């Protein structure tokens, strides 16, 4: 059984048909990389997956259980499906440590000591054990994004979604974030990553999904998609990003 199954998901924004029957399966400990043109609905797909926005049709299955259902609290679903955003979205009024403990205390109801121990462990995992008491504004972009990853990890999600996690970073900070993500993949984390970082897609991803106009056009191993794309639209897009 797949950790995550997206079945025929539909999303409309007014008259705009953003997701047009999306199907996608992610197996446990797999890393799936989604590529596709800007505006094709990749972010919307991730946001529908953790129910930050409600899908208008279709099913989201987590370990085989349909989670976009009135009988399941969306807060519980979001705790199971972590999300890392393009622009980090750290809480500006909290230190790195507090950014990570907030969810542990409020959502997981850990007491402060347990929450801090857990947060420390996750921050060390992303290489920020020395920056516990820095505010987001005192951290570089790369450090902020790693705090955001630690914040998501701390909730012990079944799967982590990344929405262009390095697009807002200065080039010199991209590597450190990708390294953390590669390590997570190695540790067996299940991940869906929207990213056009070729090195990451080729070396870390188990599968590449080409997404266009609200649909999965084609998917396969990195070699299949990048070296022998089957679809004309894939070919054109891959040609553009490889250049």
């Amino acid at each position: 059984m797949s950790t995550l199954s997206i079945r025929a998901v539909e999303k409309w924004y007014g008259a705009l048909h953003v997701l047009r029957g999306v199907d996608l399966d992610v197996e446990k400990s797999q890393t799936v990389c989604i590529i596709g043109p800007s505006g094709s609905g990749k972010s919307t797909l991730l946001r529908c997956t953790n129910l930050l926005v409600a899908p208008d049709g279709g099913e989201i299955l987590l370990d085989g259980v349909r989670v976009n259902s009135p009988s399941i609290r969306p807060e519980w679903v979001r705790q199971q499906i972590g999300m890392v955003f393009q622009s980090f979205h750290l809480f500006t009024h909290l230190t790195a440590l507090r950014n990570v403990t907030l969810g542990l205390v409020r959502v997981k109801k850990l007491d402060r000591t347990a929450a801090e121990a857990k947060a420390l462990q996750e921050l060390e995992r992303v290489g920020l054990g020395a920056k516990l008491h820095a505010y987001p504004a005192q951290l570089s972009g790369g450090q902020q994004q790693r705090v955001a990853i630690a914040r998501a990890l701390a909730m012990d999600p079944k799967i982590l979604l990344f929405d262009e996690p390095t697009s807002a970073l200065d080039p010199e900070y991209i590597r450190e974030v990708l390294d953390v993500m590669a390590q997570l993949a190695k540790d067996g984390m299940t991940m869906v990553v929207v990213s056009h970082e070729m090195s990451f897609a080729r070396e870390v991803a188990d599968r590449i999904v080409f997404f266009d106009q609200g649909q999965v056009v084609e998917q396969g191993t990195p070699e299949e998609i990048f070296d022998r794309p089957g679809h004309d639209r894939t070919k054109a897009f891959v040609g553009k990003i490889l250049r």
Partner: protein
Amino acid sequence: MGATVLRSPAVGIGAGVAISVLLFFALGELGFYSLPFILQYLPTGVGPAEASLELTTLSFLIGFGLALPLGVIRAYPPRIVRKHPNVPHRAADSLPKKLLAWPLYGFATAYVAVIRGTPFLVQVFLVYYAVIFAYPRLMLFGLSAPFWAGLLALTINTTGYQAEALRGGFQSVEGSQIEAARAIGMTKFQTFWSVTFPQGIRLVTLPLTNEWISNFKTSAILSYIAFAELFFWSRTYIAYQLARPIEAFVMIAIFYLVINVTLSRVVCYVEARRRIPGLGTQIMPGPHRV
């Protein structure tokens, strides 16, 4: 080194105070008012000043408690969910939510509009006569109608202004951070108390200080309903009884100025000390910048 000393807050404040004091004495020497008289009678204003301060602060605190829910209601207007023929289904708001949201929002909006759209003088007389008609011989905890009517009017007034300041604060918290809180599984309520509220309060610290100062100055109007505050003291006692109108209003200006400047300096200092990097109102340029 020299430039740093010149720009330090103490020097700026000191220079301002020194110039004001010099000007004050110079005008006295030139005969605009009698310095000895002012220095002799200034202490008689301390009691009325305390009355003004207490009333202002009490109404400000009660007003804050009332403004908080109003500000929250105003910050989250009920949404008009436009139906689109292509959207197959969408979870509608529950009926109690629908029935409550609009009247609450309407009330809060009307309240703010009325308070901000009418003169305080009018509000005071309305409240005063309402109180007088309802309880002609009102006496509570040894305090009579002018005090209670004054407190009520000031509270009603500052509530409207504070609600609007708080609304602005809550609404300027970044939506992306609220989304991040939701993404780790926090409920709307948890998100408000852990993210929107603490950030919003920091964003409105200086606007709320301005509101306290404005409230303090506005309290002078309560002299019209014979509440024995600062303005009442200077007008009835110094200006009429002792027939020293110029001195009366110079003295009251001194009281207001000293209290307001002290408070705003203290708040600026505390706010600057407790500032979180990357969060907060832009500090006014000036010598108190830290």
